[in-house]
């Protein structure tokens, strides 16, 4: 735990990856904090530190397919994990807010699947993928992520879930059906972008950021290559 604490500080706090503000994940799930993984993976050395820890719990498994619901940072981590297993990587597609398992994905009943992502926020995408894998009849070895901020207990997934950092108490996500969101009361709703110019701390607190689990049309079909 002590080493994890130091690792967290160097990777996340020093890279300013924790963003303060008011972030809405889905309609009911709000948080004061957002973790911008792009800033962590900016330094290629940090991904290696994370990958070793993500791979370790599943070392003995013979994983054949690695699937990720994330198309950017999660995909990079999935590649790193798959490299160690000599497995194939598939990224889930999102169209109109619904997560599809990849079109050219052929999961057979013999496959052992590992789900990899940068973090579990509400766990919706993971649940969708898990049910898709179960439908295909493949075995799911488990889920390995860097960060868990899930407001539900991780045992709810029904598979083995391994996380490096459990931040569900330090940087919590509030289920507004159960609890009140402090930020909603104090801040109101102001639209801002994650990649906007850096703001001063006070201004940044006034940010409202909608994390698009339901993507816009531009995100709907992810580029399979940049043929220009």
């Amino acid at each position: 735990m002590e080493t994890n604490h130091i690792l967290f500080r160097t990777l996340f706090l020093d890279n300013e990856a924790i963003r303060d503000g008011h972030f809405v994940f889905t309609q009911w799930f709000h948080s004061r904090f957002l973790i911008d993984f792009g800033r962590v993976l900016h330094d290629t050395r940090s991904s290696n530190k994370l990958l070793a820890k993500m791979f370790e719990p599943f070392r003995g498994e013979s994983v054949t397919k690695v699937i990720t619901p994330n198309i950017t940072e999660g995909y990079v981590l999935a590649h790193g994990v798959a490299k160690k297993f000599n497995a194939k990587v598939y990224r889930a597609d999102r169209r109109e807010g619904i997560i599809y398992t990849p079109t050219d994905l052929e999961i057979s009943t013999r496959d052992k699947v590992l789900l990899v992502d940068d973090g579990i926020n509400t766990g919706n995408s993971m649940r969708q993928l898990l049910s898709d894998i179960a439908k295909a009849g493949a075995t799911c070895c488990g889920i390995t992520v860097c960060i868990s901020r899930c407001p539900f207990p991780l045992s709810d997934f029904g598979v083995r879930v391994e996380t490096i950092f459990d931040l569900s108490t330090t940087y919590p996500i509030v289920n507004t059906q159960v609890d009140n969101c402090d930020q909603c009361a104090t801040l109101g709703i102001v639209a801002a972008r994650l990649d906007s110019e850096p703001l001063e701390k006070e201004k940044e607190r006034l940010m409202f950021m909608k994390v698009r689990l339901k993507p816009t049309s531009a995100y709907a079909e992810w580029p399979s290559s940049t043929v220009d």
Partner: protein
Amino acid sequence: MTATLYDMTMDLKDEYTSLVSRVLGEQLQVTLYSKLSACPSDDGVLLLDFSVVTSVHESFVDEFLVPVLKSLERGEAGDKYIVGVNVDQERLNLKGIDDLMQRNNLLFLTFLKDGGTLLLGSPNRQSIEAIEFVHKSEKETAAHLAVQLNVAESEAQSILSFLGKHRVIRERHAQDVGLDFFQALLDSSERTRLLKHSFQEELLERIDRQRAIERNAHYQLPSGYHAEEFLHLSRVLDDARFSARIAVFLADAFKNDEIDVILTVKTPNNLVLAQGIGDYLDAKVVPAILDQVEARLVPASNIRLKQGDRALILVDVIGTGWVVNLLLALASNGGANVEGIAAVVDLSEAKVGFTLTKTVTAASLTLKMYSPGECPLCAQKIPWIPARILPRA
């Protein structure tokens, strides 16, 4: 003469490009013996490809290479040879490995990336010449060798007694096969052809096998061009180890350029390749996204370029060069110096000349693409689909 090329990193399970033997040594030995037995006897030689290996530890040599070479010496695997090719001297723990091989009384012939040879475990640097001499001559006497190598006779005697213990000399000398295959390997142009051919061919074969080229499509590319055939490179990069090999292949061309940042577009393919290259070159990754207002790229996640950074531009596919030009503009706005451009596949048929900067591509392809006014599909009134290739802010 038949040479089989084998990249053992494909069969390593744990650490991919760094050769460290753990429990995997035994498993790898089995694979290697099967590769050896697939080589035809008499003139079979197995080339161990070190082109994507980033480091070789002593433990790997101790637990893997030494037992294999010993059993070869005993003649257990038939009349075969193992030779290392594409070895990068800087990436070997040279002294440790040399000592280890000498302790075990073994020789391992390797060919370096930049030409030249290195005999691991040799008592002196003239051993290669000695091998050639002994192979050619009918009489392998110390006196002859001393004249040939211009050394004292006592030293020649010690070299000869050392070499005499090794199968590489003992059974082959003065026979009809002789040194031919070694000389063929020593010919660097031949070796380059063999290796380069193999990687490019594998890439093109995978593109073909994964059906990565979509035919009979009609896309409008962001540059205004229309495409009848579209390359979905992500189907090739799905294989994590192969994408790592591509990354190392591209990174190797820039290893002396002291790259600080890798400028790329924030799409899945590019991010994965950029991570691999950045890992190899110890560089940072700056992914860019399309600005909402203008047609220009801006760095994602508030990452800033530093003045005077040495930048490498990475795109997975060069089509018309539109994206590369946007990235070049981003670099010049941020004050970075572009040291090179890396791409996996070049579709431009070398028509796009980025003459000022070094451009490295793994393969070239020709696809049916038309400039805006000349599209025959538009003439047939087939509707086109806009290809979304860039992420927006």
